[in-house]
């Protein structure tokens, strides 16, 4: 080893942070019970201030309340949790918009975070912020590998845990939960979508950066890459949407995360987003007899005033366009789309990301 090389190594060592100190700080955070199981970034006042500097909101402004657990969350708490989650300060306005969007979901305010269903938010980002902050807008839309997509939903999860005080096995009673809980933040592939972005369906028009969010219970892929007939694909999607396992209320709701290839196929056939929604609204459902044969007679009776047996009437499962938001995400490299089961119903509104004045 030459003298020059040895010196170089010594310089790096001097410039690098102390790993032993960093590990102690990480362990300290675990010991306080703040973690979701993964290491947290220990937050100091200077880091907190960098987060607070990205918003015009006051640190003590309340941005969310859950009356049943007697907790409010303010900007200060949101900033600490976002920093702990691994967000960069410049992500903070997106975290604030995502939290507001999620709390517009009736189920999120009404006990969803405590539920045996263990629901997880689906967060969708639109507009120029996707490129500005380096969101993944292409392949592997559901993750992992990209810091904003990974850390923003984690920030929301930490905020529910630490801000609202909803901990697993105590106020959080998930039976099994779901993979990807607090991990799903999609940046819509607007560049390859043939349609308007989701935020426009949520009332934020004109290419403004915005976030939409809703609670979900799981997702299931529809791999359909061998047919030239768009109606075949729609029937395949309808089949998955019409599964009985998830049907526990009169109406259900799904987010359709279409790959660019499927979306473009529908658009080439002359279909708008609304056409796709309307096609599915008419066809997704099952007969009362099918529901009864799978132990869902109560759903049939209560929801559709059906009989316990022999009810051959077809019952639609979806209510209207907001019960089936359509998003385009992922790479244009295979015809694989995702049916995402919504826990309650999307609020149908999106939240613009506030720019600091």
């Amino acid at each position, binding site marked *: 080893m030459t003298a020059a090389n040895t010196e170089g190594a010594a310089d790096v060592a001097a410039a690098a942070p102390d790993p032993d100190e960093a590990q102690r700080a990480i362990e300290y955070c675990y010991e306080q019970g*703040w973690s979701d199981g993964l290491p947290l970034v220990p937050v100091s006042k200077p880091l907190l201030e960098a987060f607070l500097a990205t918003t015009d909101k006051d640190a003590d402004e309340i941005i969310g309340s859950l009356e049943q657990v007697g907790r409010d969350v303010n900007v200060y708490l949101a900033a600490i949790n976002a920093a702990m989650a691994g967000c960069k300060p410049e992500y903070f306005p997106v975290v604030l918009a995502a939290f507001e969007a999620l709390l517009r979901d009736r189920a999120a305010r009404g006990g969803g975070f405590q539920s045996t269903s263990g629901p997880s938010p689906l967060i969708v980002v639109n507009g120029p912020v996707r490129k500005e902050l380096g969101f993944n807008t292409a392949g592997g839309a559901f993750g992992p590998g990209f810091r904003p997509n990974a850390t923003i939903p984690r920030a929301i999860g930490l905020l529910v845990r630490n801000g609202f005080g909803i901990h697993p096995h105590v106020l959080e009673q998930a039976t099994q939960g779901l993979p990807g809980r607090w991990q799903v933040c999609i940046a819509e592939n607007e560049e390859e979508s043939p349609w308007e972005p989701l935020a426009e369906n949520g009332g934020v028009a004109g290419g403004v950066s915005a976030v939409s969010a809703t609670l979900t219970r799981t997702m299931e892929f529809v791999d359909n890459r061998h047919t030239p007939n768009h109606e075949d694909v729609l029937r395949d999607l309808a089949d998955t949407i019409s599964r009985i396992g998830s049907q526990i209320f009169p109406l259900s709701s799904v987010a359709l995360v279409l790959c660019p290839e499927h979306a473009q196929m529908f658009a080439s056939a002359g279909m708008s987003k609304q056409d796709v929604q309307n096609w599915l609204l008419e066809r997704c459902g099952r007969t009362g007899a099918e529901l009864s044969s799978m132990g869902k007679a109560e759903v049939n009776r209560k929801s559709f005033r059906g009989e316990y047996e022999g009810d051959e009437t077809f019952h639609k499962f979806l209510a209207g366009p907001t019960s089936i938001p359509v998003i385009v995400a992922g790479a244009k490299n295979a015809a694989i789309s995702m049916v995402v089961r919504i826990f309650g119903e999307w609020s149908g509104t999106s939240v613009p990301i506030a720019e600091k004045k």
Partner: protein
Amino acid sequence: MPNAILDPTGTATSAVKPAAPRAPRAKSLQGKRVGLLINTKQNARPFLEEVGRLLEEKYDVILTQRTKVNFAVPEPEDVIKELVAGNDVVITGVGDCGSCSAAAAADGVVLEAAGLPVAAIITDSFIPTADAMAALRGAPGYKYATTAHPVAVLTEDKVKERAAQVLDDVVALLTEPAKDEA
């Protein structure tokens, strides 16, 4: 002096009452107005109706009935007021899910603080969440009745059996002072 590591946890808001008092118990249920607060979960209605029927038989109680506005969250103030005005004691349940078991405990604590003895019934899977909610509402150690989980899948006969089994606990909750009050 290094920077401190900042605490990300919230603190309770004013909605949380410090130390909610337990209502004075009824001396007996004889002829009392008993409110059934039904949380709409599967089998909650037949369960509470059977408890009510047994109390009618035994103590000649007068039953009133009301459905929870939203099973997942505690009842709004106006409903609490109406319950207090219209009943001498309240029985609520059946808490058999994450949010509704917590809400049953919360309703119990709020009604107790308003002077009404309550028997909340939850399934035994949700004891930790009911306890946590009661503590959050200023009543750590709040007493309620439990029945084995699950209730939603029980047949009509089994629901009646369960209601009969929990009856003594319900009566005790409504009439016996806590040990430290005796």
